[in-house]
């Protein structure tokens, strides 16, 4: 049964979020519904944010970039999650079943999505001082039980959508925190660099999502050191464990599962029109470059390699149609800017060289 959730009472457009949450928990049924509806609505929340935070997001010029300038401009943690249940239909958004601060529901997909979105937000806030996907406290919404035995999870431009898997190919798609980090990061990339989702720029887009998906997992594991991390994306996703360990390996591209075609070097770059020009295939190359950089630098990768990649993502010189080489060059440049005179820049160069991208 579906309820139309579009009707929004005008009074809720000026009510602060903490009051909305209170109404959502304690109000009469109609008020609760309207409050839930408003909390989940993108544009209303962003309007509230824009009013409160008058300062625009700074565009760092290369000459003045410092660690502080590269970090996000968020002043306060503003995590606002809503998980929706699509009840195995393809209609969106589905019913809101868990809002920010609400207790566990007992539905693993709902609770895992809630935790995974939170872990992703926390990583971005704690490590990069980025306040949600748009760095302005945008609500973080997940839609679970999408479709019937649906073997996919994706970012639709505004929200994350998860199928249950069919239990033959995939388990439920919320099973791995790095998948959620991956999907949310598509939102970050779209906000920052708009890397076009095809061929090399698309493979970079995919790689950035794998990088930060992995970092979310490593952060969540207690700021795990790079050398201790498994560098796998989507571990446990295959319903048949004999099929493989994970969806992708950043450490050894091409080994995650039977049939994994990811290359680890430009010599093996796959020219194809499938998969938007191989965006999930050729991402293995920049993935490996990040893995090499992170492990050579050592320690928790969020703070150095993760910073260099983040500065690159936000660098105005990174164009939407960037090639691997152009992206690689900017990682080296930003490595030097962020860590002047340090070993970081050379390590970055060596990593790219090892995967066949000469800069």
């Amino acid at each position, binding site marked *: 049964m579906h309820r139309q959730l579009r009707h929004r009472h005008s009074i809720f457009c000026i009510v602060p979020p903490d009051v909305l949450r209170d109404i959502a928990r304690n109000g009469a049924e109609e008020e609760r519904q309207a409050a839930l509806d408003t909390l989940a609505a993108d544009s209303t929340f962003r309007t509230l944010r824009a009013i409160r935070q008058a300062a625009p997001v700074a565009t760092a010029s290369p000459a003045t970039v410092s660690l502080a300038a590269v970090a996000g401009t968020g002043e306060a943690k503003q995590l606002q999650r809503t998980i929706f249940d699509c009840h195995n*239909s*393809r*209609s*969106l958004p589905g019913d809101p079943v868990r809002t920010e601060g609400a207790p566990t529901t007992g539905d693993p997909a709902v609770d895992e999505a809630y935790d995974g979105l939170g872990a992703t937000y926390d990583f971005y806030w704690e490590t990069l001082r980025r306040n949600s996907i748009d760095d302005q406290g945008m609500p973080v919404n997940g839609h679970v039980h*999408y*479709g*019937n035995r649906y*073997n*996919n*999870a*994706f*970012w*639709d*431009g*505004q929200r994350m*959508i998860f199928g249950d898997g069919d239990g033959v190919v995939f388990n439920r*798609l919320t099973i791995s925190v790095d*998948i959620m980090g*991956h*999907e949310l990061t*598509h*939102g970050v*990339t*779209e906000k920052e660099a*708009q890397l076009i*989702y095809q061929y090399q720029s698309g493979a970079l*887009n*995919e790689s950035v*999502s794998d990088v930060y998906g992995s970092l979310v997992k490593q952060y969540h594991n207690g700021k795990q050191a790079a050398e201790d991390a498994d560098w796998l994306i*989507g571990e446990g996703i295959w319903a048949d464990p004999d099929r493989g360990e994970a*969806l*992708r390996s950043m450490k050894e591209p091409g080994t995650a599962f039977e*049939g994994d*075609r990811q290359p680890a070097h430009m010599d093996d770059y796959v020219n194809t029109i*499938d*998969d*938007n020009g*191989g965006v*999930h*295939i050729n991402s293995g190359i920049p993935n490996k470059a990040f893995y090499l950089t992170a492990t050579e630098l050592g320690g928790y990768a969020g703070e150095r390699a993760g910073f260099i990649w983040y500065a690159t993502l936000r660098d105005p010189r990174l164009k939407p149609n960037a090639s691997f080489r152009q992206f690689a060059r900017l990682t080296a440049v930003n490595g030097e800017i962020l860590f002047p005179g340090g070993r970081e820049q050379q390590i970055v160069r060596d990593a790219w060289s090892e995967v066949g991208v000469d800069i």
Partner: protein
Amino acid sequence: MRVRFKMDGGFVYLPARSEPTTIDTDDLPAEEAKELERLIEAAGFFELPETSSPSRGAADYLRYTISATTPEHSHTVHLTDPIEDPHVQALVEYLQRYS
């Protein structure tokens, strides 16, 4: 009526997923043939736009290519998730179950 269905994309590249399926209603039991014809008609298939682009910034979405040929019509559409029209959703669900 012959219907050809192909899936592509998704959050991992699976070539097997991209193998097309072809269904000929002449080869189906009468009830199933009727069901497929009904779904095609309910979706307004032959009037659907040929392509619909994914939203800006969308990623890891599944893509569907559906071709239907009858003695009178022949049409191909390219779709990406999420599909908005519930009738088109129903057609895709049916074809996915088949493939």
